[in-house]
């Protein structure tokens, strides 16, 4: 099983009266300069790949760990509404593993059941 990868997004209210200014602000808040400041002041790992050339960012082990996880062991989390259905079956699978109701023998069928539950909408 792979992890889900995602990131923050900065959005604009579609009914804003000053659309141009709002979009410019959003662009600035997501820019490389703002991400660098976030990294220095709050230790938030930047997602802008241009910043990887900066030596402070490149030498940080946290940054390389997170980027490796992102690149090699996760898939991008889908944006569809059906993603809502996947969390409860995953949580219950975790609870089942922990309290021993999921064993080596029934792991296969339990995973199948979880897959079926994740893809059903409960109706």
């Amino acid at each position, binding site marked *: 099983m792979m992890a889900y990868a995602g990131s923050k997004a900065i959005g604009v209210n*579609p*009914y804003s009266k000053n*659309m*141009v200014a709002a*979009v410019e602000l959003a662009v600035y808040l997501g820019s490389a300069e703002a991400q660098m400041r976030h990294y220095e002041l709050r230790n938030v790992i930047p997602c802008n790949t241009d910043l990887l050339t900066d030596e402070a960012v490149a030498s940080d082990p946290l940054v390389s760990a997170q980027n490796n996880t992102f690149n090699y062991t996760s898939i991008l989390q889908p944006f569809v*509404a059906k993603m*809502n259905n996947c969390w*409860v*079956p995953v949580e*219950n699978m975790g*609870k089942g593993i*922990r*309290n021993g*109701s999921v064993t080596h023998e029934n792991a296969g069928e339990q995973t199948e*059941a*979880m897959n*079926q*539950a994740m893809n*059903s*909408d*409960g*109706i």
Partner: protein
Amino acid sequence: MLKLKKRVNPFSTPYTCMRAMKEGGIETKLSMVLMGFGNFMHRQKIKGLLYLAVEVAYIVFMAVNGVGFIRMLGSLGSVPQKEVWDEAAQVYLYTKGDQSVLVLLYGVATVLLTLLMIWAWRGALKSAFKAERLDKAGCHVNSFVEDLKSLLHENLHRLLMTPSMVFIFALTILPLIFMICMAFTNYSKLDNHLMLFDWVGFENFKTVFDANSILGSTFWSVLGWTLVWAFFATFSNYIFGMILSLVINRKDTKGKGFWRFCFVLSCAVPMFVSLLIMRTMLQPNGAVNVLLRNLGWIAQDASLPFFTDPTWARVTVIVVNIWVGVPYTLLQLTGVLQNIPAELYEAAKVDGANVFQTFFKITLPYMLYVTTPYLIVTFTGNVNNFNVIYLLSGGDPVTDLASTAGKTDLLVTWLYKLTVDKQYYNVGAVIGILTFVILAVGSLVTFRNSKSYKEGGI
């Protein structure tokens, strides 16, 4: 069986709407079109102008907004939000689309306003007829100031009932009809119907009753557990409360006040605090399991499945509910017990009855007779007992991963999960309607068949 009796109206008045339309003069008949005309012609000028103002306000509202709202009610809006690229400003601009929720709300509100207007129209007609009759007979016709004064005397009911009726209409009836209408649409997160949805008729109800769909099988099992839970919760509290009140109330018991204080103490702590603490204590690594492990009664890595095994979880919630609910039944039944006439007990002792016979032949029938309405109300309350189930087990355990409900979920906690967690608002509305129907039918049938109602004691 119900006997139909012809209802005699104790407040009958000769100024009814039908008579106004048939026997009224030309001014009254014109009042049907121009509200307040009859009043105006018969020396009630201010009242006539007020009625006219109401009619004008309604017509203006309908012409500007109302007709549009009612017309959109059929399609519930169809224009989605549009995105337009503005070349000059180099940004995307958005046009506001329709929001079906608001369309439904405004449509329902306009329909209700129209019903209110019809009621006001009838009132205007009756008032014009009365003014015409009184004027033609030469009797005194109330001026506006006298009408206002009569609001404090014979028309006091109109003055006092109007504000509460306004609030009930706006805050209870309108939301109720609005949410009932939601049950006939497809307003849910499925298929992206949160902004724009349509009428689907009885399709949601069919899915809920169909035992082959996931929703249907969930519904029937949740309904079964809800009824079982309500029965056991009500009667376990009742029986334990009765036993405790009997034991404390015996003549030979010393320190009655102290014992009552002990057993009522558990309602001094707010219920949700007790339930959350109980929940934490009964977790697989909570206080109870750790204690049992230290005592050696269970293995070192085992834990009693209080909330992880379905049957254990169901028994646990019933037992914890006893601890939370016994104080209330204890107090209630103590009051009833102390009202049983002592002569009955003395007569029984003279006749040589033992404790059990006294209990089953005197105490129990009397208590059941007096507390039947209380039991029905408690049963109804337990069907909707959200706090205990949600705070104690949260509906766990979830054994059927595809369904939206757990094994200890009641109809009302399932409704919460459907609407707040999953945003299936239409299904939630259907479950709400069905809960109400079940409770209403059950309560009415039980109450009407109970001895207390039949003998007119209550």
